[in-house]
């Protein structure tokens, strides 16, 4: 039964992710006084891309063609490990929060290599910037994980969720809130949202993620775009379910699963709205100001860890 749930959870993630990206886009459009494309536009885009012709650079090697699959696979693998609907999961013993983080780093690694392969300067630029941002976000993520793990007694995701559910007062604890702040900034960094990277830009010199995928087309591009949307979904699910876990089902019955799906949707919509408002309000940072922002998130995570062992 649990395994069916695992597969269902992953399928749900894959199915909802493009919609999430579409929702943020639509909300931004509305905030900017435009009508905006409908929320399910990304689904049409993916379908279209899968049917289109693929053009590959003459300089590229087998790595270029393999990278989209590896990126997609590692992001999808994470959806099996993250508590989206229910806790505990049968795959809990497979990987904890550290495994999740490093699997996402694996996808970034191959995306960067895929950017370097065609030999275009934009790809190299995107790869170098992306690896810089990823490398500087790592300490924050590790410390935020540790702040959560300290409170819960384990880096195991199911246990973290269970522990927060058992102790509602912990929600207000500064360690919790600071870790949330730190992880929120890291989410923006890793998923390529403003103020770190503008997902809607068409100017190559301002791109980070888009520059790496400039050479991809057709089904390869579809896989990469889908993987990016799934990554966004994963981060939102983590932010929602690790910090505000009420709604996640503990005992597997149809009603609890339905409640879990509903609460997940609510959390996703709220987070999407926050991100949309944020993206409309603030401008993109210059690349060399991004480390400052990441240092802020590092200090927040550091404070989260100190608070965690302050209150003991």
């Amino acid at each position, binding site marked *: 039964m649990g395994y069916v749930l695992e597969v269902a959870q992953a399928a749900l993630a894959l199915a909802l992710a493009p919609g999430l990206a579409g929702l943020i886009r639509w909300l931004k459009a509305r905030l900017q006084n435009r009508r905006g494309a409908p929320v399910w536009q990304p689904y049409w885009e993916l379908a279209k891309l899968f049917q289109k012709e693929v053009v590959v650079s003459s300089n590229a090697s087998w790595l270029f063609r393999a990278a989209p699959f590896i990126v997609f696979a590692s992001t999808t693998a994470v959806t099996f490990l993250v508590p989206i609907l229910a806790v505990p999961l049968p795959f809990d013993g497979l990987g904890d929060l550290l495994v999740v983080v490093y699997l996402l780093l694996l996808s970034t690694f191959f995306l960067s290599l895929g950017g370097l392969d065609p030999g275009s300067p934009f790809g190299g630029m995107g790869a170098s910037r992306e690896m810089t941002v990823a490398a500087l976000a790592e300490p924050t993520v590790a410390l935020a994980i540790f702040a959560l793990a300290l409170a819960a007694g384990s880096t195991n995701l199911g246990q973290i969720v269970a522990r927060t559910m058992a102790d509602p*007062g912990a929600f*207000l*604890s*500064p360690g919790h*809130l*600071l870790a949330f702040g730190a992880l929120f900034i890291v989410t923006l960094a890793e998923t390529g949202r403003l103020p770190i990277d503008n997902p809607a830009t068409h100017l190559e010199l301002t791109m980070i993620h888009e520059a790496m995928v400039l050479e991809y087309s057709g089904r390869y591009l579809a896989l990469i775009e889908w993987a990016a949307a799934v990554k966004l979904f994963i981060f939102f699910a983590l932010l929602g379910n690790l910090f505000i876990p009420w709604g996640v089902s503990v005992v597997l019955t149809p009603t609890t699963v339905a409640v879990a799906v509903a609460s997940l949707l609510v959390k996703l919509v709220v987070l999407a709205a926050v991100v949309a408002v944020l993206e409309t309000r603030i401008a993109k940072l210059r690349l060399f100001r991004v*480390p*400052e922002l*990441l*240092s*802020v998130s*590092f*200090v*927040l995570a*550091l*404070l989260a860890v*100190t*608070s965690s062992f*302050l*209150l003991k």
Partner: protein
Amino acid sequence: MDSLFSQLSVLGSSLVLLFGLILLWRRGISAYVGAFAAQSMVLSAVIAIVGYFGNDHELYWVAGTLFLLKGLVIPRLLRRMERRFAVEREMEPYVNTASSLVVSGLLVLFGYMVTRPLVGLSQLPTRAGMPLAMGLVLVSLFVVISRKKALTQVIGFLMLENGLALLAVLGTYGIPLIVELGVALDVLMGFLVMQIFVYRIHETFESIDVEQLNRLRY
């Protein structure tokens, strides 16, 4: 009840410290003034909470004075100074932004280690916030030594006062009203003196960059 008090006090102290960190992150003086005003308001809220849970009504007066003086009056004076000196941003501090933030994190850790014995001895439910207050004191000192503009240093000094007040409140449930009034008056006098100095610096050098003071040697 007790744990709610404890949580609120730690929450308040964290916010106070976080506003202090804005001095190291942002570059515009108006951001600093806003952060200082917000910090003082949160501080007065924390003092009021301590007064409520600790059943000490004097603290309400302290909170009120702090709110008025440091939350409203001084920020208004600072904004007036800022307008007069045109907008000068902290563009090249002695320690760059990312490093300053990392150093401030380390200073907070250091503050934690320094106040550990105090926290161990104290029985009050507010003791968990003391390391954060100590951290704010250290971070304010760091702001004073690593920033070049005189206004930033003034604001850093004012935040230092806030940190000390927070430490006192959390550690001993506040200080007698008379002493607090005396300190407030001190601060106001010191502030007015500094205002005069900054004005003179600006008159002489057309800038409030403290580095320019070493031109006085020649």
